[in-house]
């Protein structure tokens, strides 16, 4: 996945990249609670975990997960408009990935958090009537309909 230009460009733009081999970094695996590879963690400057990706994924799916994680990092910091922008980008550009359903949900939540307007949640529930109807995210959003 890293040979993919889109993936490496996204990592270089948005993250400080660290690569740790299981044979040489047992202490770091224990420190971050990693028991399996490949595992990718996004962590804040305080070392607190923000997002976890476990197992291999093809490039589009991996990029979708990275963007979801970056969106969650923005959300955690209270940057709800930036978070929504990131989630919407997944919905538009990676609509065929599993990340898109989750991004649809969190884009709606981010819009609600930035606007305090419950219409954002209702619109999200409505959007799930057209796409990703069988996803767990559609079920979670159904309460807003």
């Amino acid at each position: 996945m890293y040979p993919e230009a889109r993936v490496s460009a996204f990592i270089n733009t948005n993250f400080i990249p660290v690569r740790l081999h299981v044979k040489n970094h047992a202490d770091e695996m224990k420190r971050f609670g990693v028991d399996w590879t490949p595992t990718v963690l996004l962590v804040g400057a305080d070392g607190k975990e923000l997002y976890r990706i476990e197992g291999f994924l093809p490039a589009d799916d991996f990029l979708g997960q990275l963007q979801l994680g970056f969106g969650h990092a923005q959300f955690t910091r209270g940057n709800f408009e930036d978070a929504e922008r990131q989630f919407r980008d997944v919905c538009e550009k990676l609509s065929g990935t599993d990340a898109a359903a989750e991004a649809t949900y969190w884009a709606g939540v981010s819009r609600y958090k930035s606007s305090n307007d419950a219409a954002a949640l209702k619109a999200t529930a409505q959007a799930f009537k057209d796409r990703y109807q069988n996803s767990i995210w559609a079920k979670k959003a159904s309460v807003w309909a």
Partner: protein
Amino acid sequence: MATATTEAIPWTENVDRALAESKKTNKPVLLDFTAAPM
């Protein structure tokens, strides 16, 4: 036809230095735990 050029990723193995850089840049740290040849 245009071809996308892959950027090299400047990997480090020093977690604490990366966390210090994260504090300065406000970028999250990406930790890739792997068993693949490096």
